[in-house]
């Protein structure tokens, strides 16, 4: 099989990467700029980073974001895993009905979901804030957990579960001893998805946060509206570095696992 990358391919890949990274690198570069200018580099300075760490509004927005992400993703994982197990045991027509409703929040534009939840909270006269944000985040992330867990349930050998019961396990303990370990990878990837989507969400949060509570993306939006604000550059740099480190770690971990697998296979031969 032809596996060599041609020069043209490399050039094309380079071009797309330039397009993807150039704006981010420009932000990073100017985050060290002494002046507010975004075209002249007047001198090296870390003052925007210092300002960032003294920015109470930003720190409280960050705190809110983390609380919401942890609470909503844990809740969504529990609810979604239970739901997947339940859906798996439904009759065919009921299952396809439920799945169609489950896809609604994924298929619909985020702005429609945001608006619909806003109307719901208005109807119940709930005060907009942390609670409404958490409820909104749970409802947009549950479908992703379900979609990650269901395939694992399908792949599982149902006879194992029955065998456990034949050997004297109660239905509940055989569920935790047999089913849970089998679907765990799906549960974890569902959780990770729920967590990152919650951290990153702006549109749905924008409609369900009210005037007082800010999440990090909402705060970024209010910063960006004031146009010139080098603190955003500093924040982007920090987020970029964090994301880079996390992805490198995941990548490193995956390739290490793969190497171990290959070694094992070789030993077996």
């Amino acid at each position: 099989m032809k596996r060599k990358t041609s020069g043209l391919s490399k050039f094309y890949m380079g071009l797309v990467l330039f397009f993807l990274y150039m704006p981010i690198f420009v932000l990073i570069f100017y985050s060290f700029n002494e002046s507010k200018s975004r075209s002249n580099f007047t001198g090296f300075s870390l003052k925007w980073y210092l300002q960032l760490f003294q920015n109470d509004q930003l720190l409280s927005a960050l705190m809110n974001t983390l609380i919401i992400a942890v609470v909503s993703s844990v809740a969504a994982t529990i609810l979604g895993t239970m739901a997947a197990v339940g859906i798996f045991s439904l009759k065919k027509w009921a299952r396809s009905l439920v799945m169609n409703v489950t896809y609604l929040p994924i298929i619909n534009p985020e702005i429609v979901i945001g608006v619909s939840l806003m109307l719901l909270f208005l109807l119940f006269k709930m005060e907009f804030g942390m609670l409404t944000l958490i409820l909104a985040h749970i409802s947009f992330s549950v479908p992703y957990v379900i979609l990650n867990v269901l395939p694992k349930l399908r792949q599982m050998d149902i006879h194992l579960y029955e065998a456990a019961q034949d050997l004297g396990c109660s239905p509940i303990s055989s569920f935790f001893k047999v089913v849970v370990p089998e679907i765990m990878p799906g549960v974890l990837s569902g959780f990770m998805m729920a967590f990152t989507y919650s951290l990153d969400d702006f549109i749905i949060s924008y409609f369900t946060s009210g005037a007082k509570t800010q999440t990090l993306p909402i705060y970024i939006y209010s910063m960006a509206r004031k146009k010139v604000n080098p603190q955003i550059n500093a924040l982007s740099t920090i987020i970029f570095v964090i994301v880079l480190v996390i992805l490198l770690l995941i990548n490193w971990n995956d390739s290490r696992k793969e190497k171990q697998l290959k070694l094992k296979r070789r030993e077996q031969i």
Partner: protein
Amino acid sequence: MKSKVAFLPYGIWMLLFTIVPLGLVAYFGLTDEAGHWTMSNLIRVSDYAYVFIKSIWLAVVATVICLIIAYPLAYILSRISENRQRMMVMIVMLPMWMNFLLRTYAWMTLLEGTGIINSLLKIIGIGPLNMINTAGAVVLGMVYNYLPFMILPLYSIMTKIDGSVIEAAQDLGSNNWQVFSKIVLPLSVPGITTGIIMVFVPAVSTFIISRMLGGNTTMLIGDLIELQFLGNAYNPNLGAAISMVLMVLILICMTFLNKMDSEEMEGMLI
């Protein structure tokens, strides 16, 4: 497994947080302020037909550009050696992990009148060009933000294309164009439709990109909805009616791109 009880909490949740809210959108869209049934909101939506046309047009342009850029890239990615593939895909996807507001802000600073592109152009003796607050800037923002959503489904479908099928075609005398049009393209159609939906839906309903890069020049459906709920034009009934039309529009677009079955959706989620 008989575990229907496990379904109960989600059943209630689904009813309360998916069906009731969407029902509320329909209810608001079909009633006036006093709660009487009326079609007037839906009729008023037609006053904004130009906003719909503009949104759809810009989203279509952005989707086509994404497809053109992403298709060759996804193919190249799927054909490089496996150990380098993972690294390259990670590098391509990394910008997606930054919040889209930051990415859009980055383009704001690049495109503005005194921005870096204009200062570079000045050195060559062109400009300053008026780039920000144009429809072109909005399309650029859409392409930049949603390009990974096109690359990912295309890439995952192309890794599934068996290399030996391509070799067989070559052995049987196909030239590069025939290999592409008879094998790669037909086999990648599910990835194309998923990619189109994943780019078109957020692009047609965005309101931040248009506001940050389009200034006041480019009003899109998303902006219109946002204005009715959180802006000065407060009118949730009209906003709900516009949302309904948007939902129907996307539904039509999806059936047009004919059915994405549940298995494809699962594949799309990485």
